[in-house]
């Protein structure tokens, strides 16, 4: 990996960098769409590439089950298998073990889980996870971490964090032995739950190992914790992690979350949200999400966003047309997915431009004003951005502050 910071925000901790991997360049900060089972749902890889996306995520847990390592090896890796010629990131499979498997036991050796198809118990060790990711052939691979829910309290959190460090060592060793270090880049995952002390210990330990890793993910979040705590953990980690390593916040997809993370010093994030919500009929726009299933769109002949460069909007696809087919035809899922992916890319692209131009705080203010407007700003965003020197409320009057997540949604009555 070649990683080069090309611009820094003079106010916040945001930075623009250029990351060169075996399958090309990805400009950061960026959002990574999730191609869980070797496909962005409904789209061909050529369609995804045409949207200007250079880095997507594949899911190790799913690919290991189907099509399986044998098929992937014969295909020559996941890039060849799915026809994606740009950069690929795989997670370790750790999260799915916990979220998807009915029966998982974590031991020092690894995670013992039950296959959802055969019911057989299978052991996933750190070494095995790295081997599977070697077969998949992703440009960025993740350590196997001992994942606990962000809502877990008690000694389990510390145990998981400490084990994650030991498993990192095993992942590093296995990766270095493999000879794949020059083409595949291993990231560590910082754990420690919501406890600043544990996070700090984990950070210290993992930073000591920075020569063995190409980047750092901030894991163990997006599990339903309070947003006001979430940003503090991100900030703590981003403040301490080495500047010259990319930082990846896992499971972040809402636009406001992405921009706050960028301001705090994060470079990459992934989430199923934009693609999933597209399939359910919700299009994301700079003035908030629009729920195309609502009858008010039944005869709205405007496109989702007339200034959006996505294929759906540049073709003038009307909201009325999408309303007619949404949830009935897969073509609706494709059309809105294309749009939402471009929306995410635009949010991050404009951030890059603003950071380079030195106008990132202005961009933050104008984004929030446009996206939330009178609905009110999430209070946690105001707090988080204030911590890096940006007053979101500057230049506004009478903006409501919404406690909790404050996420904007569209209902029939709104």
């Amino acid at each position, binding site marked *: 990996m070649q990683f080069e910071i*090309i611009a820094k925000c003079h106010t916040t901790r945001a930075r*623009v960098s*250029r990351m060169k991997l075996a399958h090309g*360049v990805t*400009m950061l900060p960026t959002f990574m769409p999730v191609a869980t*089972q*070797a*496909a962005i*749902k*409904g*789209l*061909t890889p*050529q*369609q995804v*590439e*045409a*949207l*200007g996306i250079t880095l997507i995520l594949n899911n190790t847990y*799913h690919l290991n089950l*189907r*099509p399986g390592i*044998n*098929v992937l090896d*014969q*295909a020559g890796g996941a890039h*060849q*298998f*799915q*026809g994606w*010629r740009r950069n690929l990131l795989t997670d370790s499979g750790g999260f799915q073990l916990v979220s998807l498997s009915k029966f998982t036991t974590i031991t020092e050796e690894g995670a013992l889980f039950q296959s959802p198809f055969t019911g057989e118990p299978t052991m996933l060790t750190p070494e095995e996870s790295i081997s599977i990711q070697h077969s998949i052939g992703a440009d960025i691979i993740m350590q196997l971490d001992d994942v606990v829910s962000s809502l877990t309290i008690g000694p389990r959190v510390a145990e998981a964090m400490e084990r994650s460090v030991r498993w990192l060592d095993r992942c590093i060793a296995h990766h270095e032995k493999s000879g794949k270090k020059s083409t595949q880049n291993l990231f560590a995952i910082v754990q420690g739950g919501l406890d600043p002390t544990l996070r700090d210990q984990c950070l210290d330990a993992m930073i000591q190992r920075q020569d063995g890793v190409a980047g750092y993910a901030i894991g163990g979040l997006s599990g339903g914790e309070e947003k006001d705590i979430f940003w503090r953990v991100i900030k703590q980690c981003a403040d301490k992690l080495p500047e010259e390593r990319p930082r990846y916040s896992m499971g972040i997809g809402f636009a406001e979350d992405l921009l706050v993370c960028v301001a705090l010093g994060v470079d990459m994030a992934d989430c199923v949200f934009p693609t999933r919500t597209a399939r359910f009929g919700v299009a994301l726009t700079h003035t908030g999400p629009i729920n195309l299933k609502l009858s008010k769109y*039944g*005869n709205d*002949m405007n496109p989702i966003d007339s200034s959006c*460069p*996505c*294929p759906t909007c540049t*073709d*003038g*696809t*009307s909201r*009325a*047309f999408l309303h*007619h*087919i949404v949830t*009935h*035809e*897969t*073509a609706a*899922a*494709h*059309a809105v997915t*294309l749009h939402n992916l*471009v929306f995410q*890319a635009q949010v*991050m*692209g*404009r951030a*890059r*431009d603003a950071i*380079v131009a030195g106008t990132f705080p202005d961009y933050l203010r104008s984004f929030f004003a446009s996206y939330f407007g009178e609905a009110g700003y999430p209070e946690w965003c105001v707090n988080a951005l204030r911590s890096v020197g940006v007053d979101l409320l500057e230049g506004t009057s009478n903006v409501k502050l919404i406690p909790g997540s404050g996420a904007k949604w569209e209902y029939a009555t709104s």
Partner: protein
Amino acid sequence: MSASIPPASRSFSFNLSSVYSRFSPRVGEVTLSRSEDSKIAIPTPGLLVSTSRGVVPHLSRDHNRKAQPIRWVHVPFETFLEHKPPVPTLQGGEHPLHRFLGYSPEKQVISSSLRDPYDGREVPPNGNNFLSANCVRGVHKVTPDEWRSYTLLCKPDIVMALTDIPFTPPPYSQKRITKSIERSCAWLVNLLRPIDGHHPLNVFVQMAGGTVIPARKAFADTLMEPLYAKDAEMVKPLPRLDEGIAGYAFDLVPLSLSLPVPSPEEVIALFQTSLSPLSIDKPRLVNSVSSPHEILALIRDVGIDLFDAHWVQRAADVGVALDFTFPAVSKDETRSEKLRLGHNLYDHVYADDFSLLDNSPFDGERVCPCMSCSPSSPDTLILHSSVDEPLQGNQTSSPLPGFTNAYLHHLLHTHEMSAHTLLVMHNLTVLDMFFEGVRKTIASDELDFNAEVDRFMEVYDGTLGVLDDARIMWTEVEMARGKGRLAREKVKQSETSSLEITVSA
């Protein structure tokens, strides 16, 4: 004769290029001219693509524009009846239906009928002044005036006149059939009323008469009879209804629902009866064919020019990649069974099969040009910031490897939608290439079309057993997950009236 037809309707023309008799196979070309420079040519025999709710299922707009086989799409209008007024009527502009649905006026022809020709579900009986149509909200009555007004507002290139085909349980009395003929003619007259003295609509008529030979003859005769008095006044200056008709359509679904179900030979006789009095050089279209065997028999015995691609699209829905050519591949004498028309990619033999969907190269060497077998690089990328890098030169020009059977197999079992996108494109291309082969054979001096038809039927299995197998495995995957989709697919499956008819030799 042609001088009396106003110039506006010359936007549609059909020209036959081979030697032909009334029911012989013939090669031709449908041309739709939008202006001096803008013409769309559709060679015949050829295909038209079916749509659902106005879209080609599984394809995004960029796909359906780039796809070679998608030159003519058929849009059943009844889906838009959910909304009053129907939303496409609000679009406005030069090509409202194209624009609303995302088809290219430069490259694509849209035909529209009120009802979906493939939908054989029971609906309440039609009346003298209305037709019962189906939409997601239930049955709506549509009058001939309304149909005319929707057509004029939405401007499809070709419109099917309303025909009174009963979708109530058979058998139908003579009275009912007579009514059907009278109503269909009356509704056609209504559609053919001139606009400022012109007849700008390109009208196709679905042949009425059901399974009753005299009724078929009566309907066709009525189209050819000179018009008098009130009827003549209504459609002037057309001397007879046939002058205002651009083509003839035949629907297989109502025949398959009749009692008794006509045999393949009887179906041919019915179509020939309808065509006997009619103009020999107008295009003939058949809806709801279910196999290439049926297509070939209809070309050979009736001289049909256009066929819907519904069955190949539905094959894509259940994971079948079609694989047949015309002329047929050489028969493998070591095998006694006939070749299947396609591959059920759910089958586990494909799990590690890294060959392309296309197993029978066309013309010997050429790889299937579809988007699955021959994907193409994007021409440009959307750049989201000034530091984003555009496509490098070598990334645009290099050809991309095609998608493998193994990948499609994986997508099908993991319930991924992109499987169907790729399969639809492939299947439409296979069918398109099939018709290209048919046209070449008919036109050729060296090849004997009838002999090649016989050989095709010898080589390939016309019972489409591969679809049955695929459907079973598709259902298993659906049961495993995909609750929402299962309900929608159930509706689709219920529209599949038992098409027992296969018109084969």
